[in-house]
């Protein structure tokens, strides 16, 4: 599998009354609070968790979908607590709004694994996620070195205005192209959605017909931008996306088929979360779990696409 760069365990305070570890003989219910299953990336995260948990006979996972609603996600966690789950996995919709309820669960002795997006403070057991700024930066560097080595213009299709990853992927990208004589001449909000991305790309390409590179905050919008480029009579458009989901409809396949020039894997951390849960609940090695795991990204291009796809679906 992929290696994990581990940060040093910050001496976070231990929860008030950590429950006794039940060991391999117990049965454990895990609550997975997902921010929004309507995003393929998050659905994949759920799938990864489901698949990994199937391999652990002691685990049973209940899923909740907050449908992008912070309040709903707070309620989901509260409902999990009523259900008396043994461990909480949460991929927060936003950090601050979920902080209090995550702390409440943590303080009640429930181990908490935070995925993808952090909460404030350190009242959780472990955070597993990738670094959006870094991913944006790598995307920028790829563009700067491979697609526009002599500088030039490009378009950006952004995620939902006001969402953290959209900002981070944008900021990181700017770092990546800094000083390379590359200009983002136009950008539009695709709201992470395929059809919105296409509409934005349609208009942007009309306003900037001379552009040959598009940076999209996720793969679906990127694929849509590619279609838009074809329609604008520019089949050679190079589109860089992010997410690299290892599914049929995902970005890696799109790179393999040439619809995207490249994508950066944004790992879901689902498998890692179950690994951590197993350590905590079954193996009784909770102390060995680091406070934070940053998952590495991987640049996917036509050359390595098939390999990465196979690797990510291997286990």
């Amino acid at each position: 599998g992929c290696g994990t760069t581990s940060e040093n365990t910050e001496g976070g305070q231990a929860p008030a009354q950590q429950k006794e570890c039940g060991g391999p003989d117990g049965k454990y219910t895990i609550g997975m609070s997902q921010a929004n299953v309507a995003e393929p990336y998050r659905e994949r995260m759920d799938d990864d968790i489901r698949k990994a948990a199937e391999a652990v006979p002691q685990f049973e996972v209940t899923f909740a979908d907050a449908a992008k609603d912070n309040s709903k996600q707070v309620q989901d966690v509260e409902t999990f607590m009523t259900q008396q789950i043994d461990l909480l996995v949460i991929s927060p919709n936003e950090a601050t709004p979920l902080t209090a309820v995550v702390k409440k669960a943590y303080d009640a002795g429930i181990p908490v694994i935070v995925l993808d997006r952090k909460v404030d403070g350190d009242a959780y057991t472990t955070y597993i996620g990738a670094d959006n700024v870094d991913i944006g930066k790598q995307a920028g560097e790829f563009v700067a070195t491979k697609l526009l080595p002599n500088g030039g213009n490009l378009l950006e299709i952004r995620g939902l205005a006001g969402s953290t990853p959209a900002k981070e992927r944008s900021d990181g990208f700017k770092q990546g192209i800094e000083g390379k004589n590359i200009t983002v001449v136009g950008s539009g909000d695709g709201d992470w959605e395929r059809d919105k991305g296409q509409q934005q790309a349609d208009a942007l390409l009309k306003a900037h017909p001379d552009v040959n590179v598009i940076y999209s905050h996720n793969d679906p919008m990127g694929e849509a931008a590619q279609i838009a480029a074809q329609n604008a009579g520019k089949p050679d458009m190079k589109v860089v996306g992010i997410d690299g989901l290892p599914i049929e409809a995902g970005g890696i396949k799109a790179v393999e088929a040439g619809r995207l020039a490249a994508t950066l894997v944004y790992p879901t951390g689902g498998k890692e979360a179950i690994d951590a849960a197993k350590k905590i609940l079954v193996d009784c090695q909770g102390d060995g779990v680091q406070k934070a795991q940053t998952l590495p990204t991987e640049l996917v291009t036509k050359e390595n696409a098939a390999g990465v796809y196979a690797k990510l679906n291997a286990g």
Partner: protein
Amino acid sequence: MTEPEQSEVGVADGGRGRDVIAQLFKFQSLFGLVLVFIAAVIISPRKNGEVLFLGSENLFNVVRSVSETGILAVGMTLVILIGGIDLSVGSVLGLASVGASVLLVEDGFGVIPAALLVLAIGLGFGLLQGIASAKFGIQAFIVTLAGMQIARGLARIWSDGQGVSITYGDAPGQAPVLFSLLGERTFNGLVPVPAVIFVVVAVLAGILLRVSAFSRHIYAIGGNEKAARLSGVPVVRVKVLVFGICGLLAALAGIVHAGQLNFGGPNDGSMYELDAIAAVVIGGTSLTGGRGSVVGTVAGALLVGVLRNVLALNGVDPNIQLLIVGLVIVFAAGLQQLRPASVNS
């Protein structure tokens, strides 16, 4: 086809024994709630012999979970009673949550001034929509559909596109600790603050609709606007005011939202308008106006809340939940049809 909600528009005194049934049907909206509640108790998972659904914490969670939509739904009830609709409430909630956060955190406002200003914004927004709809005769649906976009845009602009986190303290960039009372999910460890606010709002609105001359005007407009106008009801003024109240309540819900989450989210509250409308309609208020009650709305909101809660407690797959909630909503609304048929066939 239609049955007057006599409970609101006049006391049913002819009642006596013979129409116990009619009396029962008056509380139809509560029936659905009672049924769903009983079903929830039955299907609720148990742990150590204890019915999880009935745990007091859980019940408070239910009430709290519907309190924001509930506050919206109370305002929506008024708007729907005059035959209007307000699609903007969810966005106004988002705008208000951003507004409260920004004012408290970035602009150093006190709790009261911030709250008043945000409420005034909500009121103003509602009044403007009311003017566009009542005075210029543009359909409420379209006015508030536009208002929904506009409020969303304003929220994003005001918050610079990012959510605003609230931390408490006296330092600049921190909100007064007083505000965290709203965030206290339970006051005194017992009663959830937002639920209290919801109940207070509902009771006030219920009283308003029962005793005030204003409410007579509201019902009259919804029943027959032309007749109301000819009877001297200040139709435009009443309508504008009703939209204003709805905006005000949306802002209130937004403040509660911000307090609950310690966060002003520019994208928050989206689709809440549909939940609010659903609560109103399940509660027996007719979308054509003139008929309905706040009691029904509260029951409608709780019905949906109980349903979602017990499905989640049972770990039902979220997609299956969508199906079940959808079917139950139709069923609950269908129950309304079992009422005795009215005069006008």
